[in-house]
């Protein structure tokens, strides 16, 4: 809902020479790419390629070994993410994310999850709790507004009926969408989604695609999308970055990437370079809650 007013040439996110080492292991190796406003940028790559590590660096969970992560906030200007604390990246730079294994507040209700996401605004409105404790109107209004925003997203993800359920009791697919909605409630300019379609059935997956394109088109923000499901990636992304063993091996439009021999090699191994539309088989996620993230 932020009015984007960046020049077309300054990208929303500019990653330059990002390197992340864990002891001897180089999980991200000199990765550089750009992500634009109102575009879905997909990050793909085999397991262990360093996709989640990239997100963790972007959102302040890991301090990168080296590199520059520049975010151009349409109203607040340039932010260097690698120098900011995790919570400030979400609060001040407007970067929101979801997690590979869902991290909802499982024992809180769906609505509460969405209200907690609006913490900082509500906190200010409640005069850091003092006015709120005394029942000031300003806080009551702010809370009503927060509920309205939550209701807006509940309608989008079709959970209005179940707003008062415990989030942990929702079916898996709904939890995934709730996590996206929760991230959107922080009113971000860049939304990072870590395998949002993992473990979804085809219908849920299609719903999710619609939700993501809706966010891109109606809320005019940039999206970073980690995904193994090629139908999702090819269907909705505007731009694709391919990682393998921590290195960027390709970067371009879906069409260009699909035909890139390096990408095909990374997915299928060297001997098989036969052109194939389904060259990149979707990863089979046996245990959707598994994975190390």
């Amino acid at each position, binding site marked *: 809902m932020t009015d984007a007013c960046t020049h077309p040439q300054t990208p929303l996110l500019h990653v330059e020479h990002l390197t992340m080492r864990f002891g001897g292991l180089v999980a991200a190796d000199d990765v550089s790419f750009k992500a634009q406003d109102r575009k879905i940028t997909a990050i793909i790559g085999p397991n262990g390629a360093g996709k989640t590590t990239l997100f963790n660096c972007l959102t302040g*969970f*890991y301090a990168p070994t080296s590199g520059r992560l520049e975010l151009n906030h349409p109203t607040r200007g340039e932010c260097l993410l690698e120098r900011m604390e995790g919570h400030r990246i979400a609060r001040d730079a407007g970067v929101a994310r979801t*997690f590979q294994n869902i991290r909802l507040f499982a024992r809180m209700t769906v609505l509460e999850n969405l209200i907690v996401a609006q913490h900082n605004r509500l906190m200010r409105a409640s005069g850091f709790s003092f006015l709120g404790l005394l029942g000031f109107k300003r806080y009551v209004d702010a809370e009503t507004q927060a509920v309205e925003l939550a209701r807006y997203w509940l309608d989008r993800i079709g959970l209005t009926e179940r707003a008062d359920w415990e989030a942990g009791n929702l079916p898996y697919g709904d939890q995934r969408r709730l996590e996206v909605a929760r991230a959107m409630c922080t009113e971000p300019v860049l939304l990072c989604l870590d395998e949002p379609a993992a473990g979804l059935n085809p219908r849920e997956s299609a719903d999710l695609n619609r939700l993501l394109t809706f966010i891109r088109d109606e809320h005019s923000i940039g999206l970073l999308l980690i995904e193994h499901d090629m139908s999702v990636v090819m269907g909705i992304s505007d731009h694709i970055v391919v990682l393998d063993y921590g290195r960027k091996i390709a970067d371009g439009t879906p069409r260009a990437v699909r035909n890139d021999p390096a990408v095909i090699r990374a997915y299928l191994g060297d001997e098989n370079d036969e052109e194939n539309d389904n060259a990149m088989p979707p990863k089979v996620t046996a245990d959707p809650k598994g994975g*190390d*993230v």
Partner: protein
Amino acid sequence: MEYFVQQLINGLTLGAVYGLIAIGYTMVYGIIGMINFAHGEIFMIGAFHALIIALGLGITTGTWIPVALVAALVGTMLLTPIYGWALERVAYRPLRGSPRLATLITAIGMSIYLPNQVQLLQGARIKTLPPVLQGGFEIMEGGGFVVTLSYLQILIMVLTVTLMVAFTLIIEKTALGRAQRACEQDRTMAALSGINVDRTIALTFVMGATLASVAGMIFLLRYGVIDFFIGFLVGIKAFTAAVLGGIGSLPGAMLGGFLIGLIEAFWSGYFTVEYKDVAAFSILVLVLIFRPTGLLGKPDIEKV
């Protein structure tokens, strides 16, 4: 200088007690990732068992002392680990996979329950062991100050070093040690590859309790006085030692134990005795803040 050497000797023997207990904290932490708050109480029970056996044999004088000491040592090493085992079975195993807070609370519940049980059974007053094994070598003299290294201190060091070597060998060389390391890495995978995880964890508690019981015996010999409450303070200090050395690291626990022992000895020797416990706690806080991985611990990056 002489005074310094004396404090050094005292500190090292004290450190042996902390180090032996700290190993128990570290091993349990390594395998189930939580602090066994009740471990200090196991130490206390070990001291009681040793005292009961020593007094029960009724031979605290004369040439039978070595026999009594060995019997007390073996006895407490056999009886006390049963408490370690029962502790795991009753308070920890049922809660595996529950929220952390719940496990922490059972651990604290146990550390309240055990000393009170001992208090009810044995009374609240102090218990004494008549001094055994007196005398020692005078190794240095100067300025009217004699540095002594008592037989007891030699015994303590020999015992501690032997046990440390033995346990390091167990963990590095035996199947049990391999199973333990496997469980540390990944319990599910360990179970899938045929390791009996429950048994391995139980044995870890038993091993920790064995060492703690020896520490209890050493404490008893050195101070000659115990009560049901000793587990609390000594337990916290041993935990500090484990953290200082790097929790999860076996050599770290021993190193931390000796360091804490030395710090305490020098602190009471050169500063104030009253605040010696404050010194230990302050170290705990400082280490946790500035170097949570301790001296020898592995960095623990949180997986997101």
